[in-house]
């Protein structure tokens, strides 16, 4: 199923979709978005590319295998619960730290973001895993 239109679209859409998914992931805490949606978008980006160029070409591009992506996601989600244990709180209590605490800019990072990142990778990984398996058939 070679389609030039699809290939051009996929080539240009892929980076955009990846960036969009990251934005959605980041803004999820305060605005609509989050790891799950972001992960779906990332997966969609890969799938779109795979539809244009085939699964093997896509997997070469992603470099990381979907199984590993899923695993990394799960691991991140799990690890995000650990800082709370170190602090002596219950497992998975959100821990926050503030960086660059200036007057104009403040960056607050917490374990929920890490957890969300875990969800993001897991969802993207499992989506590509399933899709690629079926599309390769």
């Amino acid at each position, binding site marked *: 199923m070679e389609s030039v239109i699809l290939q051009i679209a996929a080539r240009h859409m892929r980076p955009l979709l990846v960036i969009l998914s990251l934005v959605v992931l980041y803004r999820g805490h305060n605005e609509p978005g989050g790891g799950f949606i972001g992960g779906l978008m990332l997966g969609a980006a890969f799938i779109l590319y795979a539809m244009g160029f085939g699964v093997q070409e896509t997997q070469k591009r992603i470099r990381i295998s979907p199984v590993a992506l899923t695993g990394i996601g799960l691991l991140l989600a799990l690890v995000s619960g650990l800082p709370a244990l170190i602090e002596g709180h219950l497992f998975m209590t959100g821990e926050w730290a503030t960086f660059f605490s200036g007057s104009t800019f403040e960056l607050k990072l917490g374990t*929920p973001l890490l957890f969300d990142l875990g969800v993001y990778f897991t969802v993207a990984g499992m989506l590509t895993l399933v899709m690629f398996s079926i599309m390769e*058939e």
Partner: protein
Amino acid sequence: MNIGTLLLALLILSALAPFTRRYLGKAAGWVFAIIPFASFLWFLGLLPEINQGEVFIQRYNWLPAYGIDFSFYIDGLSVLFSLLVLGIGAFILIYAGYYMKTYPMKGRFMGYLVLFMASMVGLVVSGNLITLFVFWELTSVSSYLLIGYNHEKPEARAAALQALLITGFGGLALLGGFVLLGIPYGNYELTTLLSNPEAIKSSNLYLPALLLILAGAFTKSAQFPFHFWLPGAMAAPSPVSAYLHSATMVKAGVFLLARLNPILGGTQEWHYLLSIFGVTTMFVGAWLSITQTDLKRILAYSTVSALGSLVLLIGTGTEYAINAAIVFLLVHALYKGTLFMMAGNIEKKTGTRDINKLGGLFKYMPFAAVVMILALVSMAGIPPMLGFIGKELIYEAKANAPSAHWFILIAGFLTNVIMVFLSMRLTLDIFWGKEPAYEKKPKEPSLALILGPFFLVLISLFLGLFPKTMANPLTSQAIMAISPGMAAIKLKLWHGFNLVLGLSALTIALGVLAYRYRLRLISFAEKINLKYFEREFSRIFFQMIDHFLYYTKEQTKAIQHGYHRFYLMTVFVVASLLVWIQIWNGDPVILTLDFKDMPLNLVAVVALIIAATISAVASHSRVVALIAMSVIGFGITIIFIAYSGVDLAITMILVETLMVILAMAVLFHLPKYVKYSGTGARMRDALIATLVGSFMMVLVLQAGTSVVQEPISDFFKESSYTEAYGRNIVNVILVDFRAFDTLGEITVLAVAALGIFSMIKLTKKIKV
């Protein structure tokens, strides 16, 4: 050092064992024996304080909410058992290190042995019923590994499985019994239970708890009719038989009865159940040993008999009986350990265990012969061995049993006659008598192989010669632990001329007579066995297992038929019917439908959804149906947006899109549209769909109208920014308030994805 570190050391040793073979070689047994021996000395060091009446208690929190602690309770009974387990265990390790030197995977074998040792020690020092249960099951599992060690032999596997199934079944019953036992107390601590034994006896949980616990103890200690697994377990290598099935594992049941005697004992039920099972096992075990010719099987049946005696004595419960039980326990462990190790030695040196093929060994191995004969003397209950003192106590206890003493006494007398007969037979037939043609000349076993038997017999001899100074300090506190308020009877070899001594003399005389006419006795026993015991219990057991497997297979075929659509149908029909019945019987459902506020554009969307549904059902093309389905999905998305569920809407759009792609990818591989279902099937499906759809509708509408409590969303609205620093409540719930749920969900996702992946990818690989 404390008991926790000791157990940990043993467990670590067992885990390391498989890796040690290369470095240790022949010395392995000696090295492995170091920790058990040190532990043995540690327990010995506790003895003076224990004899002052002290009890060592140690407790770690485990599941405090359920009253379950990981706790240890060391009193006289624990110390006596621990000394046996560790002391004999150390000798067995030395023995096994040498005995198994040519076997493959010797390191792993030693590891199993140590694991078993650790679980047995854990079992006897447990201070909490649940802790005890954990170690109890560990002994079952580790003995399974040990019995089935020669796993390439089918009979070894069968024997191991049989032992595991029987003791495992008992273990499950035991857990139930423990739970029932703990209910009146609120926790499972021995100290709590011991402080108020009346609480369980006065509750109506007593009988069920007792029956379940006895099921556990009887299966573990091979009581009739569960006795058959123990001789079956002789498929194990000799060190295993010597350790598990004579000295320790099978005593776990006896230990449990002794441990719980102050709590459960003293009632009619306890007394009768233990006495009946004990006396039957004692006699049946002895009787069945007459016709055996395999050295290890003879010993195994006599172990069954000894276990029966112990259960009987604990059930009898008089001061004499409890004393006799503890002394006999010690006696039996010492002589049976020796005999099993010697049986292994004889097999090693001559290549056979069949006593009909043995004879005249005395001139080849005089030292080993003396060791074994002394142990047999102890088994026969002849002075000056400790066995004599034990047997005299047992006679005394049986003669004064509170009920049916004449019956018990006669059964005990006959059992002892058989023991004397067996001792003579093993002595004379193996070491003297006609010498068969041995393949190679037998010789004395080497040091590591004879060390254990020698020391055990020596201890037995010393305890017999100096009972007051050596045996009493060992046993007195154990006796008091079994039966508070009872004292230890001063043990002595000579107690004057009385009924019991007369009985002993008569026993020996009859035993000698039985040996004199042994051929007639054995053929008589065989005739009776053929007539009445033709069907072996272990065969019945395996038949039951086969029937059970057949039954489950049939069941599985009916329930797990493998048709996905029928699974779904079953799930939907059952679920919706249950809910419908509940709605029918419950309060009347009040549905307040109000369409006045519904904006016109949403009405249009709903109409679109309905139209799409109809076309999806009616369509003759898969692609059309798929598109119609996604119209429904996007219609719902629009509704979400209209009611400002933005997160949901985005998710829904993405999922819908991906679903269409996924379905297309699947459809691509399917054959052209064929009408699979007839009108009947379609009507059925329509009915089910209506059933499910209508109940979901009713549920949703009712949920919207009934407010039972403050909605939880208020809490999230208030605290999502203050506590989790996020304004998007949906996301905050997902990643913060209920992050653990989400973790579970993404794990499920990952597993499902892996499942699909392996189903598609790996099956293809196998086909190719």
